[in-house]
């Protein structure tokens, strides 16, 4: 089975109770206008009288309204971190993150989900970019999203307009300390949040030695530091702690946090890692 076929068979696992007005293939437990009968409820003023079940009225002399299960269209928000920290290093960090986002969007579109990419305009503001068709999706290029911005992407995410009961996929290196606020925002909007952390291998395993000035590519701030083996070890511990903190907060709201291994091919990430992590099925 080739990759495309495999991709066509994949679905995003929406661990949520979201509902939208538009029909989609995913069934929701919120009442709607599909043909499948769900249950009855007592007639109230304003209800569509066409839904009154006259048979029951004949038997009971009470007015009941038939309820039907709604077929809802899920909105999938793609938040791809486009700050400078995502720059391609030895490992193609941004390109791979972009590929993952694109593939997840494809899967969503394939399943009649609504896909919205939250992009940054020239003024640095976040705006929603609806991807209605696969054609629109395929026209997206990583280059179009560049140059990467110096501002912290997460502070922008905090201002994002997100509907309730949606699925949001955040692809970022997650260095930001605003992550807790971000998670809280998605929780407040009752979203299903999936955090995919994309760290290059060289970020996980530091290979620096001696006296070094570390320059933050986003803020240009510098740190003079003498990196020794112990310092390296401490840093790595710190990084793990940071990851754990994010994961812990994510789990608090039932969200999933996945540290993506960018050393692998994107296909492997999708077909193996994300399935294993129950992001896809």
């Amino acid at each position, binding site marked *: 089975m080739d990759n495309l076929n495999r991709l066509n068979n994949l679905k995003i696992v929406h661990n949520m109770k979201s509902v939208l007005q538009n029909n989609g293939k995913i069934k929701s437990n919120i009442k709607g206008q599909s043909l499948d009968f769900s249950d009855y409820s007592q007639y109230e003023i304003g209800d569509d009288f066409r839904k009154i079940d006259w048979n029951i009225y004949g038997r009971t002399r009470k007015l009941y309204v038939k309820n039907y299960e709604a077929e809802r269209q899920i909105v999938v928000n793609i938040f791809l971190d486009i700050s400078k920290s995502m720059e391609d290093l030895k490992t193609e960090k941004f390109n791979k993150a972009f590929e993952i986002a694109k593939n997840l969007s494809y899967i969503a579109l394939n399943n009649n989900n609504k896909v919205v990419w939250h992009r940054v305009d020239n003024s640095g503001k976040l705006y929603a970019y609806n991807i209605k068709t696969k054609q629109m999706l395929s026209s997206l290029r990583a280059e179009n999203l560049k140059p990467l911005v110096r501002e912290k992407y997460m502070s922008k995410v905090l201002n994002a307009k997100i509907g309730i009961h949606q699925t949001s996929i955040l692809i970022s290196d997650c*260095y930001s*300390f605003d992550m807790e606020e971000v998670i809280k925002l998605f929780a407040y909007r009752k979203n299903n949040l999936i955090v995919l952390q994309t760290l290059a291998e060289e970020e996980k395993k530091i290979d*620096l030695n001696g006296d070094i*000035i570390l320059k933050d*590519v986003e803020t240009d701030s510098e740190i003079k530091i003498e990196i020794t083996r112990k310092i390296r070890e401490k840093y790595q511990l710190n990084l793990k702690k940071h990851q754990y903190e994010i994961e812990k907060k994510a789990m608090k709201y039932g969200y999933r946090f996945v540290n993506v291994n960018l050393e692998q091919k994107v296909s492997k990430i999708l077909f193996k890692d994300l399935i294993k992590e129950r992001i896809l099925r």
Partner: protein
Amino acid sequence: MTFLSPIFGLTLLAIIPIIIIHKFIKRYKRQNIPNNELWEELLNHRKADKKIDKLRNNIPLILQILIIIIVTILLIEPRFNGKNYLGEKVAIILDTSYSMESKIDDAKKIRIAKNKIKELLKKDDSIFTLYTLDKGLELKADENLNSSELENILDDVICTKKSNSEIKTIQLIEQLALDKNLSAIYFVTDHNYDFEDEKINQIVIASQKINNIGILDIDEKEDDLYIKIKNYGNEKINFELKMNLDGSNTYKIWDLEIEEKESKYFQIKLDEEYSYLDAKLDYNDDLVLDNSYYYVKNNLNEFKVLLVTSGNEFLQKALKLDKTVDLEISDSQNIIEGYDLYVYDNVLTEKYPKNGHILEFVKKSKSMINAPFEYKLGNHEIFKYIDNDFSIYKASKLNLPIWASPLITANENILAYVGEENGYKRLVFGFDIFDSDIVLKKDFPILIINSLKWIFDENIQSIGRYFVGDDVNFQNRINNEDIVLRDNTGEEKDVEINNQTVVIHDLLEPGIYSIEQDDKIYYFSVNLNSNEIIKVDNEFKEQRTLIQKNNVEIDLMKKKSMRKVILIFLLLILIIEWGVYRYDY
């Protein structure tokens, strides 16, 4: 606390470049990273133990500064004040041989040496002992004296005219160095010795400018006098040679010249008879002592010996081996008197002379003993160095006179005897030398020489030339009591008479000495030891490469120290530092 070499304190300046290397020329690499918030957080956390971290990060710097401080301390050699603190025992040996009398820029070497020792006493707070060295080592000040007392003793030390050979000097000092209590020996001298023991430090006082001539030796051959003179300097020298014969007040004078660095025999014909002379070089140089030399004419007495034989070549040759023998040969039985010794070789005589010693080989007598028989040599000095392996085929049985004692016996038969009759010695062998194979062995000339030695005895006449510091020994058989020794000034000196040996200890001054006995006067000369002269000679040759700008002194400090150990220790520190550094990064 004092420092032996404070100049090395400058080594501390080496700390500056190290600090510069560590701090100011610290090269940072620039590295772009996606985000440094985590690093900042890490640094914030580390602030808590920043002081310890600072210390830890500066370990290489601290260690290197420590190393420099240790090296500096090592070099400046700090000493605590107070004699008993360190308890190091140091021996100072001052060379007091006569060459130390020579001058360097109008200052005597001994004076410079004393000043050098005083400097040493001030700098070093060890416990000192002071020795002087000329012919032997003499302890002048032991460890109980304080430095001012030691300086007083040092001031009183004077040069002697004694000296020693280089080998003996090295032996003496290295023997002293065996004393484990001694931590160091400082030998202040004017010669560069090659010591093996690292405990021995030399302070050599020598000069580049040399202005010295000296007499090395005087010898006489066929009435001509040969005087060996050496010019140690770098310039040709014209000088006067003055000679005084037999202590008269008149001098014979020769104008001579000698090239630089030349050693030369000057041949001089003296027409006059003399017993002794003193020669002087009239020249103003750095060392006056070696300008004089004393010489005693070869005054060995000759003994008139008459050999009565019908032609015995072996006996003739053996007798002539003794240079004191003036040999005459006769085949006549009519003896003319007036010889010191009469040697009868197989000659029958009825009347022996009464004014001389007699040595006789008898061939025939009434009763003979024929081989094979075993003989036995008596215990007598004439058999010294003689092996008992010669054979006698035929010998006369001798009658032993009452004044004689047996010399060779065979079964109670006497084959030879010795004795003294009326003050003259008689030695009689009862066989012809041709009736024995001794004549063909090396023992024969030894036997004859031994016989002559016993007959004439070794006496005063054989003494002649001595060096300052020597002991004089000679045999005195004639009259123990009547010996008078006069020194070079004519003053009567004590002599020690031990059995038949006369001993004169420690001749301290060069000159002509005399011994008077039985109205006879015997002379002997005492000179500076030529070894010392040669030593000075060598020294100048060897020192030339050593002496640099300073013409006063050269320090050859070979002090054995802990430096090697400490340097190894420092190396270890550096290795550990490197290891720690590698582990950390």
